[in-house]
């Protein structure tokens, strides 16, 4: 994380009666970072986002976004933050331009700024020729892109994207992720909420895992893998032979072995065991390959919630 913190939550809590929607969340996001927030439905992600935007009042705790308190200075926060809600809505009867001009005027942009930024933003999201078309004729993917164009038009220092790819096809999703990387390249800090773990892993510098309104884990994917997957190292072994799994598990320091294919095994280790694995397998097995595996966020997520369920 960079030194300048642009989003900070300290003990942020939202209570409805006796139920905690968000339970004492602490979160720091550095300038220029892309931070993913993950978790099952109802785990408190959107409520946290709404509190950061000043759209919902926290029951306890405080937040600071772009140097302002969203509760006390919501207008200043909203001037600096672009927000893309999940399944974004537009006025169907208006054109794309009129929709964005309306929010542009609300954001305090002059007519000239709106004209200049509108064409540029639409071009960046891959919709250069639809400015005059009514939004009623747009597909879901186009609406989502238009939502991102609205964020871009505002030129915010922080972008908060709530499940932006939830309704997109795989091709559009990849394009959208490219646009999110483009935001980072512009120096924009991005807070991204998503259920698509592979996507989060591909764009985010750090992730925060929400569970029952709390941040259960946070850090880079590698840090999370260390904590959740037990071993500090994950090694992929490609080899041919019988009872390979048992052989690998018998090596001291191996925590877990998982078969990924007929000749491919993923080994969680306490330390770098590549030499030991090679020594143990080489005499009697065809060793085809051995390398460090990138820890998968999907694996971390699944394992964490499996263990949380068992613990419960």
């Amino acid at each position: 994380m960079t030194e300048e913190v642009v989003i900070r939550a300290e003990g942020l809590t939202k209570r409805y009666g006796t139920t905690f929607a968000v339970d004492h969340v602490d979160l720091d996001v550095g300038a220029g970072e892309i931070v993913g927030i993950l978790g099952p439905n109802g785990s408190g992600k959107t409520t946290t986002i709404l509190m950061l935007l000043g759209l919902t009042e926290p029951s306890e705790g405080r937040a600071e976004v772009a140097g302002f308190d969203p509760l006390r200075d919501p207008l200043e926060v909203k001037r600096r933050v672009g927000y893309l809600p999940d399944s974004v809505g537009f006025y169907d009867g208006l054109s794309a331009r009129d929709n964005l001009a309306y929010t542009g005027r609300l954001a305090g942009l002059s007519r000239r700024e709106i004209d200049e930024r509108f064409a540029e933003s639409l071009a960046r999201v891959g919709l250069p020729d639809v400015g005059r078309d009514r939004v009623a004729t747009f597909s879901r993917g186009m609406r989502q892109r238009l939502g991102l164009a609205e964020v871009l038009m505002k030129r915010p220092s922080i972008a908060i994207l709530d499940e932006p790819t939830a309704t997109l096809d795989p091709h559009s999703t990849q394009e959208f992720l490219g646009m999110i990387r483009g935001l980072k390249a512009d120096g924009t800090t991005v807070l991204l909420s998503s259920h698509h773990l592979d996507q989060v892993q591909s764009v985010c510098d750090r992730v925060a895992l929400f569970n029952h309104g709390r941040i259960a884990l946070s850090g880079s994917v590698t840090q999370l893998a260390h904590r959740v997957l037990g071993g500090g190292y994950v090694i992929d072994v490609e080899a041919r032979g019988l009872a390979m799994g048992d052989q690998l598990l018998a090596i001291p320091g191996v925590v877990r072995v998982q078969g990924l294919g007929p000749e491919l095994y993923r080994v969680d280790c306490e330390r770098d065991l590549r030499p030991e694995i090679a020594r143990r397998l080489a005499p009697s097995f065809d060793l085809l390959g051995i390398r460090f595996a990138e820890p998968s966020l999907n694996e971390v997520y699944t394992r964490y919630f499996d263990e949380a369920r068992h613990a419960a």
Partner: protein
Amino acid sequence: MRRRGSPFTGVGVVLAKEAADYLSGARMWVLEALVFLTAIAAAYAAILSIRASIGESPFLFLRLLTMAQDPLPSFIALLGFLIPLVAIAIGFDAINGEFGRRTLSRILAQPIYRDALLLGKFLAGLLALTIGLLSLWLLTIGLGLLFLGLPPNTEEMVRMAGFLVATIAYGGVWLAVAFLFSVVFRAPATAALAALGVWLLFSLFWSVVTPLVATLIAGPPEGIFGPNLAYLHTAQILDRISPNTLYAEIALALLQPATRALGPVLYSQVQGALLGAPLPATQSFILVWPQLTGLVAAMIVIFAVAYVVFQRQEIRA
């Protein structure tokens, strides 16, 4: 904790956008056409009747608005009936429509308070209503000029302008009711039904309800020695809860200048009065001032309730 920044930031932008939507929307066109056609028909029918007795009254233009000609009711009766419908049609989906379109969180993520959204939308609705009523008012005067061949005198213009203001305030009350239900109910159909239910209660059933309740509170209308004054006062207070009653009383006092009192009149109060002689416009305005301020106050109170409910709502769309 006190919020920084003006709650009115963005009101103008919301007002301009919403007013344009209201004025160009098909719904508004249909409703305006309905009001215009029926009101103009009523005024035209009244003109035909007035032309036969043109020298009988110094207030011909006021008679244009108050005279009924079978089978049509009077212009003011039609307005009293139709204006709430137009106001409800404008406001019933003002806020829940934003939830339904999932535009609310996107709009409120811009640097405005939700106060500005609600107030901007309400003022836009009131502006659309005002533009429609002003056009109708000018059209009626034009028709009068054309068919009666006489211009309205100053007193008539003052009284008609006062009536126009009262009609806008009356429409504002129903607009506020529609806004309240659009905030309370997430489904626009439910909000429209609830607002129409209130309108039906006050238009049709209130005159049935008030005598029953007044009797329960103050006893029967007739006492041993004549009319029961307590009953009359109670019935009048209950009647005046209805915006329709307040509007009808304003219309009566402003458009029929001979009206000297609203409600029960004692013999002692009319001693020495020249019955049938018109009151000066200023006196008529003094007579309807409580009703007029009552309508404005009702509009503000209902809007304030909608505002409080909206402030407490979760924005998740």
